[in-house]
């Protein structure tokens, strides 16, 4: 389970799971804006504490979040090395690394605790203001399908890697050149099965009379509750405080 965490949803009963998806998406947008506005390590630390608190409330093992951060280790290490070579100050490196960690953790809070259909619903609602100039419903559907495909592709990749290993091409023990060869070999079946899967999904939508033109009703209503309000206000306040902090300091 730990290996395939990207894009997965964990159906657990928690306060964060019950949050309105629209509120969650607006909050993550406010959060992202805030952490990019600030230049203070202290403020980044405050945001990290906030994310840890939300993780605690999500009732999902912290190990799974750590795994997600660990997956980005090369990216973070590469940034640190390049920064050191370019003589970037230590303060700045710490700030950017904290930013990375905050972004990764909060993004995974969203995907772990929100169904892809709910994320689509939220995007549809938020982008609704542009519906006269953009095909919002189609965009939202594309995003849902793309999110659903991430775990499918990872599982498929693992299967093919095992199949290759059983025929003498083990990715774990292979040299760098062979690893490249294996990754190339994987591309064909991944594309093949992705197209096949996409076809199957399209058929499944069609047989159930799905049409982007029809007006649809939602089976599950996402009513706003008090905690939604608190969650949004908290993010909004932090966003405003970050702007003030940036302007004053």
């Amino acid at each position, binding site marked *: 389970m730990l290996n395939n965490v990207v894009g997965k949803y964990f159906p657990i009963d928690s306060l964060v799971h019950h949050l309105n998806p629209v509120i969650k998406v607006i909050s993550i947008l406010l959060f992202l804006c805030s952490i990019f506005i600030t230049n203070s390590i202290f403020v980044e630390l405050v945001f990290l504490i906030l994310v840890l608190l939300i993780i605690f409330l999500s009732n999902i093992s912290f190990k799974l979040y750590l795994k997600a951060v660990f997956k980005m280790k090369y990216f973070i290490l590469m940034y640190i090395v390049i920064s050191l070579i370019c003589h970037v100050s230590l303060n700045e490196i710490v700030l950017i690394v904290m930013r990375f960690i905050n972004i990764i953790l909060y993004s995974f809070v969203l995907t772990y605790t929100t169904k892809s259909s709910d994320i689509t619903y939220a995007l549809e609602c938020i982008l609704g203001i542009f519906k006269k100039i953009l095909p919002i419903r189609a965009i939202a559907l594309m995003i849902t399908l793309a999110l659903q495909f991430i775990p499918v592709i990872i599982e498929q990749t693992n299967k093919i890697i095992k199949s290759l*290993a059983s025929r*003498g091409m083990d990715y774990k023990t292979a040299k760098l050149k062979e690893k490249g060869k294996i990754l190339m070999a994987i591309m064909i079946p991944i594309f093949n099965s992705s197209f096949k899967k996409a076809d199957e999904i399209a058929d499944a939508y069609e047989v159930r009379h799905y049409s982007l033109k029809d007006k649809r009703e939602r089976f599950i209503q996402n009513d706003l509750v008090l905690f939604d309000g608190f969650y949004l206000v908290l993010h909004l306040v932090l966003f405003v405080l970050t702007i003030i902090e940036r302007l004053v300091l």
Partner: protein
Amino acid sequence: MEIKFNHVEFSYGDKLVLKDIDFTIQSGMITGIIGKSGSGKTTLIQLINGLLLPTKGSVEVGTFVLEPHKRIQNINDLRFNVGMVFQFPEDQFFHTTVFKEVGFGLEQFNYKKDKKEQRVSEALKMVGLNDSYLDRNPFSLSNGEKRKIAIASILIFNPQVIIFDEPTIGLDYESKKSFMRLIKLLKKKFQKTIIIASHDTDFLHSIVDEVVVLNQGKIELQGNKYDVFKQEKRLHKCGIIAPNLISFSNKVLEKKKIKIGYRDDINDLIKDIYRYVK
């Protein structure tokens, strides 16, 4: 090649999938691993060719010993001896011609290139396909043919142990029959050790010698197929239905108090009944 599981445990993260697995698979026998979905069949067979390593205990495959967190150096030698056909082999092709797909294993195990063509033809012939398939795209074949290609791609490097994961899923009656013939041939003519993980008890009953029943990651029953399959109630407890021929024999014994014995083939069973009635 004998395979020995010594008190093996395996877990995915915190989830314990196999618990205290301790049994031996005899060389030259066909062994069936039965269990309902999620009982740990696939995990168990992946421990045999080193795709997974046990988290406790050890697996002995001939002279190879697989132990926790200990990657074996000559893993390809083990895989050369233990071939594995996956549950959905059709999803795991990565070459655009049958020739390249079937011959892939030979390249990895350092076979001479000039023998490749001949070996590919022989492997295809064994699974009932001819050379006209060599230049075809494996992705465009029917499900039964795809499965045959997957089996040929393992048979080509002539492993001593062959593992099949749910081989009968999606196969029609004729394909099942020809698959059964192939398994029998591999055992009788080439003395291969064959392991089949499946929940198709009718199919397993007609082909295997020994059976291991898994239930929630533990061995519930094991032994000679007749000894295992006749225990209908225990099989039922594990979510498995006993083979039809065994169920029929048990019902006759229970209702009429007539012991007609256990047979692998329906024709033999009918002959027994006929003899008894006569």
